[in-house]
């Protein structure tokens, strides 16, 4: 096992990995930019290395600085977390070259699965179902028109190197194809430095269900079941759960999808943690989308239902150990749900809301797990994504899990920045959500509304009277003078 590991990330995932390192009695090194000097990760790690200015291009994305920090601190391995350099084959290769273990798949496996078109071709080769469309990048309009009419509209244009909804367009008829191709391609170039796009049939109201995979360096590959991540906004996941509500209706689904995912991973020589993403249509047909060659944000829901620790497993596998579990050892129990708590304003098109967390009350108690990267007094920087914490719950069944989440959200208070706690309170009470009728366009039609203050006026007046100083600062208390966030 490793003696010291550098965590090349920030926020809640850095904290998550640091915790696992301490549990394994491995020394840890956190890294930080100017904006993260006071971060929770820096406080929790055994050692910390300064990377540079706040923009990630000058800190968390700098391969040279990370390798230098690992050398300086004598780390023998690097955990990349998710995002940043976690799926960067050059980073994995640079680690290998420096004699540092990259805790993830090999550079070669990242390359063969990193591009969506390459992953798609691989899936086709092993006979896994994919969404009908082009196997390679589309370069000219004539070809695009021919393929689109063959697979039928609506079609989806996607960036080959992409993710997060960038370089993605839905086209419902041929007249709009040329403009959409141009837009998607230029957006792809700006976002991923590759203008390559491809075409897929657009499925109507599909579910997004993914399979967690694990491979070791001895040829063993297993799956840890599915996660349903259909609730997305701008192609970013908002709530994840395991098992999928569809598993209750179709008990063979997990096994069928798991087998397909393993075949694809085997063909790529995949090791360590990975996730195969699928779309599932109304008839329960599933189609392979892409492979995420890293630990996922939403891994806690899998941990809660399998009782396995995925970061511990990553450390085991990366240090050369044989996977300690065979497929037949994996058991799933109960139901887990995760809400991503973001610094964003649900009443203003979910615009990010960086700033100081002036007051923070966090939930605990039976069945509640909180993966947080923040604390009271912390300034949420505007340089990075707005994820504050992941609130996950486990219960014996889905309805109890929903009730438990409702309870945990009720214990949560975040003051000083806008956040989506109220949004989740409304979302998990939605009858369609409770019924498990989920699809990737669910949130397009879900209407969030600010609830009216309960008895705000009288209370505010009372408080103002109690604190003479506060009275000046507070407005004349009117019901409309307060809004929630």
């Amino acid at each position, binding site marked *: 096992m490793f003696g010291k590991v550098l965590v090349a990330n920030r926020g809640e995932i850095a904290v998550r990995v640091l915790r696992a390192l301490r549990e394994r009695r491995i020394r840890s090194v956190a890294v930080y930019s100017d904006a993260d000097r006071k971060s929770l990760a820096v406080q929790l790690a055994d050692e910390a290395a300064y990377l540079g200015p706040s923009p990630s291009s000058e800190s968390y994305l700098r391969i040279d600085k990370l390798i230098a920090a690992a050398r300086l601190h004598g780390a023998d391995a690097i955990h990349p977390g998710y995002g940043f350099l976690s799926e960067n084959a050059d980073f994995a290769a640079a680690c290998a070259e420096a004699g540092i273990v990259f805790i993830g798949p090999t550079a070669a496996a990242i390359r063969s699965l990193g591009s969506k078109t390459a992953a798609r071709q691989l899936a086709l080769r092993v006979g896994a179902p994919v969404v009908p469309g082009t196997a390679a990048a589309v370069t000219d309009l004539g070809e695009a028109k021919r393929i689109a009419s063959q697979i039928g509209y609506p079609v989806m244009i996607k960036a080959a190197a992409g993710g997060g909804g960038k370089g993605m367009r839905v086209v419902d008829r041929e007249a709009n194809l040329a403009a959409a191709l141009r837009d998607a391609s230029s957006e792809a170039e700006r976002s991923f430095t590759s203008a390559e796009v491809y075409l897929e049939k657009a499925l109507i109201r599909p579910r997004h269900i993914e399979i967690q995979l694990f491979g070791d360096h001895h040829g063993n590959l297993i799956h840890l079941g599915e996660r349903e991540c259909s609730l997305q906004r701008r192609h970013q996941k908002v709530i994840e759960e395991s098992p999928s509500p569809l598993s209750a209706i179709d008990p063979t689904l997990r096994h069928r999808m798991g087998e397909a995912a393993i075949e694809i991973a085997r063909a790529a020589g995949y090791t360590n943690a990975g996730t195969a993403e699928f779309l599932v249509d109304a008839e329960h047909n599933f189609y392979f989308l892409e492979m995420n060659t890293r630990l996922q944000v939403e891994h806690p829901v899998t941990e809660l239902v399998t009782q396995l620790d995925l970061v511990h497993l990553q450390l085991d596998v990366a240090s050369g150990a044989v996977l300690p579990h065979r497929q037949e050892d994996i058991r799933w129990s109960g139901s887990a749900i995760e809400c991503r708590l973001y610094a964003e304003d649900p009443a203003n098109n979910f615009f990010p809301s*960086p700033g100081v967390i002036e007051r923070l009350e966090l939930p605990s108690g039976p069945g509640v797990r909180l993966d947080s990267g923040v604390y009271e007094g912390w300034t949420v920087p505007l340089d990075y994504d707005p994820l504050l914490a992941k609130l996950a719950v486990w219960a014996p069944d889905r309805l109890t899990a929903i009730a438990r989440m409702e309870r945990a959200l009720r214990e949560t208070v975040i*003051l*000083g920045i806008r956040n989506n706690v109220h949004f989740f309170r409304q979302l998990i009470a939605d009858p369609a959500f409770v019924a498990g009728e989920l699809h990737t366009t669910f949130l397009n039609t879900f209407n969030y509304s600010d609830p009216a*203050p309960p008895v705000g006026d009288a*209370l505010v007046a009372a408080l103002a009277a109690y604190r003479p100083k506060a009275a000046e600062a507070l*407005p004349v208390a009117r019901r409309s003078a307060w809004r929630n966030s």
Partner: protein
Amino acid sequence: MEPDIVEIRPGVYSVLLNGQSFVIHESLSSEWIAVNSMEWLRVLADPRARSKSGGSAGSAAREVKAAMPGKVVRVLAQAGEAVEAGQGLLILEAMKMQNELKSPRAGVVAAVRVEEGSTVTSGQVLVTLE
């Protein structure tokens, strides 16, 4: 009936009002409170609401302010340029998301007070209209 208030710990109060008991959390800036863990933001402290409510009243209509802290990634209008209501003036980025700031009315841009790459705070005046 007079409300009865007890400070539980700094910034957290128990309020007894008309026989009902509430727990109130107050933020340091006094701009936010939570009543029984439901959070409320003081609207008058919200620059967005301020510019909305003052939209027709003189200075507010002349100033376009940042609704959120962020970074100016693109300036779309120059001083002296005539703009339509709703026309984009500049693009602000925070946390990997871009937001276009639009002109609240038709008019002529008097000054652009920031440049591309500037970091701005919430409520800061970015553009003035004549």
